[in-house]
């Protein structure tokens, strides 16, 4: 398969992730959608690594994986904290700050 296939696939995933962030209201699911976007980036990186024959992309992908994990950890921590404060699990209700 040509590299382009992988790239277009990654683009689709990226957009699906983005759409998810925009449409879902649970912070948890939004975090998952962010994972999708990062993974799309990973797919692209690996594809490009294959295309250029360099290892940089793979290293990058690995780094991104860890970063994503860290974000998830912090994000989930935040969700737990919100839950503990009895805040609603709906980002639309988190709009006290505005204007």
């Amino acid at each position: 398969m040509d590299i382009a296939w992988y790239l277009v696939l990654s683009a689709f995933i990226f957009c699906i992730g983005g759409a998810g962030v925009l449409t879902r209201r649970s912070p948890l699911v939004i975090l998952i959608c962010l994972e999708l976007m990062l993974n799309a980036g990973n797919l692209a990186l690996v594809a490009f690594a294959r295309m250029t024959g360099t290892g940089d992309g793979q290293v990058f992908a690995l780094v991104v994986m860890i970063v994503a994990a860290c974000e998830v950890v912090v994000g989930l921590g935040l969700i737990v904290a919100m839950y503990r404060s009895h805040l609603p699990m709906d980002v639309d209700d988190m709009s006290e700050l505005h204007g």
Partner: protein
Amino acid sequence: MESVVFFVAAFMAIGGALGVVLQRNPFYSVLSLVVHLLALAALFLLLSAEFIAAAQVIVYAGAVMVLYVFVVAYVGGLEDPLMEPNPVLRIAAPLFAVALGVELSVAILGSGLKGIDSRGPHVGAGFGSPAQIGQLFLTRFLIAFEVVSLLLLIAAVGAVVLARKSAAHPQADERVPGGTV
């Protein structure tokens, strides 16, 4: 053979992704994500990135997902309605997703790069192997490696800070309305 694997994996990846977005129950979303991640791992294998694929399965589909499931379980099954209440987003979100997708596709397909319409150059067997990755990490990307380790540390600290049952503010209990904890 490769094509078949690709299409199957691609189908699963997209299906998983759509599942994440469209499932009302977060728990199912998490499960869809696992499917998606496994499909990606397969694609990584096709792209001669064995180590990444392995890490994907172990780290992501394994560890991180467990975390998700745990939190979903802790927080509870909160379902949100699919019907979008925000009129702007109802139209704009899919619209921009499609627009961005088209745009990225145009960029990819319109690129004049030679490599993009190939399957990539021939690469040695060591490509994507743990050894190669490790070597890169210890030489050119040493800094990234070290920084990432620091990042893991601080993420842990951060999670502790956030998730710790805070004794500093007793009023948290006062504010419990019905006591669902």
